[in-house]
């Protein structure tokens, strides 16, 4: 058992876990793209992809092969450095974000060992910071490609992000105050009996809406806006460069669903689930917490994907209004409630 803890704390072993996660996130991203198409098909009474593999599961493999055999075109008017670097920045943002997000946990002898690449005291701040970098990537792509549609999309993107970053961070801070920690693992552990969705429902709504906006999911797709701006900031991108940026967005959706389930839905905890009860059966301790977390993340992700077909798109001025005039006051209200609650319960 001592050996296990030693290996578990070894930074090189953690790096290996991180690399496995990098592989896994590609798999999850592919599942997300497939589910998006299937759900869209179901909701619109279509079949969706069904030719490649059983139920079309291999559709994305076929797409990837196609992207690999497309010519790499950089427009002559584009700023080459920015144009090439933009998808890399977006991909890097997602990869660095996933370094601090636990993908599951193992319970051995009443002790919870989260499966995470980098354990740090400030992981919540770190995740938010890394997640915001993708915004810079989008602006680089748009400014670099020197296209009018791209630039309009990027300006809208900044206006939207400017509005949603503040409510998002305030609701994150509310969680941190209630848990008295910025460590995402501590936050999950402290939600053992009661999830934070119960204790701060307003905070959950604000966080959910704001992180949907950060992922760029509909109804917050003003940056791409296929109906008005051709393809928004990706207009000039084609082939694999488009593929990288597009895939980074889907991986962002997956990580966002993980974040929502970790911060507000109790992570790997289920009510009445006592780690001690599982010690008798170590196999359960290995499987159950991880399966619970993955299940929650999957439910959140399906909900986010279905949102797209249930809600009409917003105009950009409506989006800006929603962030500043509704979500920001709500997030401050939630913060005051959390302060009052913590003062009443704590100290």
């Amino acid at each position, binding site marked *: 058992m001592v050996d296990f803890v030693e290996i578990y*704390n070894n*930074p*090189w072993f*953690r*790096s290996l*876990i*991180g690399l496995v996660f*990098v592989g896994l996130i590609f798999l999850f991203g592919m599942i997300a793209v497939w589910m998006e198409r299937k759900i869209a098909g179901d909701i619109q009474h279509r079949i969706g992809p069904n030719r490649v593999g059983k139920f079309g599961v291999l559709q994305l493999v076929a797409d990837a092969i196609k*992207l*690999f*055999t497309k*010519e*790499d*075109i950089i*427009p*002559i*008017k*584009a700023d080459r450095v920015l144009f090439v670097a933009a*998808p*890399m920045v977006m991909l*890097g943002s997602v*990869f*660095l974000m996933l370094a*601090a997000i636990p993908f599951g946990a193992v319970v051995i002898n009443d002790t919870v060992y989260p499966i995470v*690449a*980098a354990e*740090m005291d400030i992981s919540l*701040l770190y995740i938010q910071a890394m997640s915001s970098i993708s915004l810079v990537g989008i602006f680089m792509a748009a*400014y670099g490609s*020197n*296209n*009018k*549609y791209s630039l309009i999309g990027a*300006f809208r993107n*900044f*206006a939207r992000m*400017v*509005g949603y*970053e*503040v409510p998002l*961070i*305030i609701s994150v*801070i509310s969680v*941190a*105050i209630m848990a*008295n920690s910025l460590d995402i693992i501590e936050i999950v552990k402290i939600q053992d009996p009661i999830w934070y969705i119960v204790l701060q429902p307003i905070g959950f709504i604000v966080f959910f809406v704001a992180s949907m906006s950060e992922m760029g999911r509909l109804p917050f797709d003003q940056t791409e806006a296929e109906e008005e701006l*051709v393809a928004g900031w990706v207009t*000039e991108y084609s*082939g*694999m460069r488009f593929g*990288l940026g597009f895939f980074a967005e889907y991986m962002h959706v997956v990580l966002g669903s993980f974040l929502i389930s970790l911060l507000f839905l109790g992570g790997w905890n289920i009510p009445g689930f006592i780690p001690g009860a599982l010690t008798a059966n170590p196999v359960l301790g290995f499987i159950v917490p991880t399966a619970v977390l993955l299940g929650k993340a999957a439910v959140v992700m399906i909900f986010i994907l279905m949102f797209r077909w249930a809600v009409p798109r917003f105009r950009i*001025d409506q989006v800006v*209004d929603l962030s*500043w005039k509704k979500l920001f006051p709500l997030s*401050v209200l939630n*913060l005051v409630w959390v*302060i009052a609650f*913590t003062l009443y319960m*704590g*100290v």
Partner: protein
Amino acid sequence: MAGIIDSYIPVAIILVVAIIMPFITMFIVNVLSPRSSGETKFDTYESGSDPTGEARIQFKVEYYLYAISFVIFDVAVLFMFPWSVVFVGYDIAALLTIELLIFITVLLFGFVYLWKKEGLQWEK
């Protein structure tokens, strides 16, 4: 001290992977993909018509005012991060909480002012 550095070793390795991977991908693309000649394919896309002028134009000034108002709020929010972890179990917590509540109140006055000035609107 070693513990802090240890937890960032995985981050560094993932960063290296994130930098290398797009290069490898683009290398594979360059090997596999066909080449075709043609001048117009490097043109900027503008719904089929010939592209006119530059895309990098001067944007309206209200946009920057709006961005400045964001910077104020965002810096203010950053102050809350260190405060959030000393909330329970420290002697200074009560004093800090009062200070921060005053700070938030002042911030809200600024917010109301911005709202009344219509500084938070996309178009006036």
